[in-house]
């Protein structure tokens, strides 16, 4: 099995440690991983702003980089959801469809394809888990509080394999952090207020770290934590699962 590693643009540029952890974790689990070096971005920043019609260049490039792999894995629910729902190419519709079908967010790849049952990781800290909306409500990585349906959590089941970790409870288990792509600047006041409230919930329950499957939400919350002078840190879930 050969996996194409897709690293979202802002992770590549700002959070290389999250990307390294993803690569190392997959390698540790015996996966042959290749990172196509000509990759850029999934195109979501344009599409969510109403400019999906400008994403054909990104789509073409994405297909070119990733169409040949058995699976495509990315440490992001949001970018994966965008590819799944919106990648299209009139010139090669079958390839676009195949990309959409074989792309996985990291934790669901670990639970559903690799069916990981144990991880050699230790993280003796109090950790708050942020449910990023696109991963949760879009990719169904975990059950949503609105539905009358049985509980499950793919990221949660993996974190439970980590030795010494203490997952803290939250008042609002799956409320949005307010990042929302360009929403974070276009609707600055609400975005920041949402972020402050989300962070406060984690702080109130004694989190030392906030983790999640999407670095974008974590970047937003980190921005608020740092501005508040908090010592609480954010970590991508790959970093915890990889034993940092």
């Amino acid at each position, binding site marked *: 099995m050969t996996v194409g590693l897709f690293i979202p643009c802002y992770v*590549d*540029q700002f959070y290389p440690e999250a990307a390294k952890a993803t690569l190392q974790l997959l390698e540790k689990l015996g996966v042959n991983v290749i990172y196509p*070096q000509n990759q*850029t971005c999934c195109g979501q920043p344009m599409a969510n702003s109403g*400019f999906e019609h400008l994403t054909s*260049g990104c789509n073409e490039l994405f297909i070119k980089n990733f169409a040949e792999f058995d699976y495509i894995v990315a440490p992001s629910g949001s970018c994966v959801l965008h590819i799944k729902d919106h990648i299209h190419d009139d010139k090669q519709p079958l390839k676009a469809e195949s990309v959409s079908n074989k792309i996985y967010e990291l934790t669901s790849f670990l639970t559903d394809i690799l069916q990981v049952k144990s991880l050699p990781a230790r993280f003796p800290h109090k950790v708050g888990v942020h449910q990023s909306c696109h991963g949760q*409500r879009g990719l169904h990585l975990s059950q949503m509080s609105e539905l009358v349906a049985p509980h499950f959590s793919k990221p949660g089941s993996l974190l439970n394999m980590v030795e010494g970790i203490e997952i803290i409870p939250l008042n609002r288990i799956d409320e949005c952090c307010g990042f*929302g792509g360009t929403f974070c600047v276009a609707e600055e*006041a609400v975005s920041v207020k949402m972020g402050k409230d989300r962070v406060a919930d984690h702080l109130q329950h004694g989190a030392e770290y906030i983790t999640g499957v999407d670095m974008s939400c974590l970047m937003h919350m980190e921005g608020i934590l740092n501005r508040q002078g908090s010592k609480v840190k954010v970590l991508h879930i790959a970093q915890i699962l990889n034993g940092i």
Partner: protein
Amino acid sequence: MNNEQKDHAALADIFNKDEARVDWHDETLWWIRAKRDKSVHQIPEWEALRETASQIKNNVLSNLHTYLQQFETNAQANGITVHWASDAKEHNEIVHSLLKMHDVTRMVKSKSMLTEELHLNEYLADHGVDVIDSDLGERIVQLAKEPPSHIVLPCIHKKKEEIGALFHQYMGIAEGISDPQFLTETARQHLRETFLTRKAALTGVNFAVAETGEFVVCTNEGNADMGAHLADVHIASMGIEKIIPKREHLGVFLRLLTRSATGQPITTYSSHFSKPRNGEKMHIIIVDNGRTVQLGREEFRNSLKCIRCGACMNTCPVYRRSGGHSYHNAISGPIGAILAPNLDMEKYADLPFASTLCGSCSNVCPVKIDIHDQLYKWRQVIVQKGYAPTAKKLSMQAMAKTLASPTAYHLAGKAGRWVMKIAPFALNNKLNPWYKNRDMPKPPDESFGEWYKKNR
């Protein structure tokens, strides 16, 4: 209220100046969402019920032409007069002409979001008709000369002290009273006099049954019934989408409506009007006002399935922190944001962007409207139709160009983490809204791509 020229972001910014108030507003609405959760989790078949309601509404929209006529025929056979109105003007003129016919200059009205959408009160006031809203929340915002900020909880943005001040001014109670029990009792006494003296009552319609020609009005206060059963003339205004095929379908919708709205198992009163009472005149006005246009928009027609429960507002993290008035439309929140652009795409171009697309709205919707997907689709339509600001257009074009070319992307990265240069949230500049309340991460020495090249 001079909200017309400000967009959602600007109005939300003003709302957020008072953070303690935002917290109060957020917590109040979250509490209702929590009550909803508690209530729906007692119904194991809840998701099947939603799915059934959604399918019934799909059937309604696909047979609306037949159902509307069936409803009309049966309502007429029951002795109800049926009117049709293409738009607000026609609806309001019909109401006015009915009032004139019965020589009425004072009317009592129970909650009808449709008449808010059609600006009936303003129209009638201009024509010398005094309208009193009888729903307590609506009466309060009417006294405050504001529109409702929520379709189910019209004055959810008002504090009890402010309501006390309004009642002091208009109902003559002593200054400084804010006890909800006392204030409600005061309104009860005042409005009882109104119910007893008005010869005409207007109500909304929650459901209109094609099979029987009856319509159902749901309230907790009993104000629709007090108005209608004491008046000589009952006018009921309904949008064309309020039709349901059969009486038995009420079982599905009444189970969903109030549990979704407030967590109650049912409203106190679910009143089924099928014939006028002895000596009374009953009129129904069936209104289009853009609904048939929305019906023709394949991607957006599902919005017409809405049963106006307000659950999407209560759960919306943006609505809770920006307030209903920031949507500058009769119907606020996520559902308002997908209905409003149909009415005026330019005026409401901002609303589909007032969302993080978190998707909670679609999950609580009792008729499973894909609200957040429609918000995404409206964004595309609005941009295509040319209602996006030029600056945004230019930055998006620049971004698209960079991201479509690995060379440009890597060059920009080397030049100091490209995101800093072109991503709208990362521009390191005091004018950038990101930095008002947030820091950006420090750019690392090398990107993952650069590291990978050296290490693998």
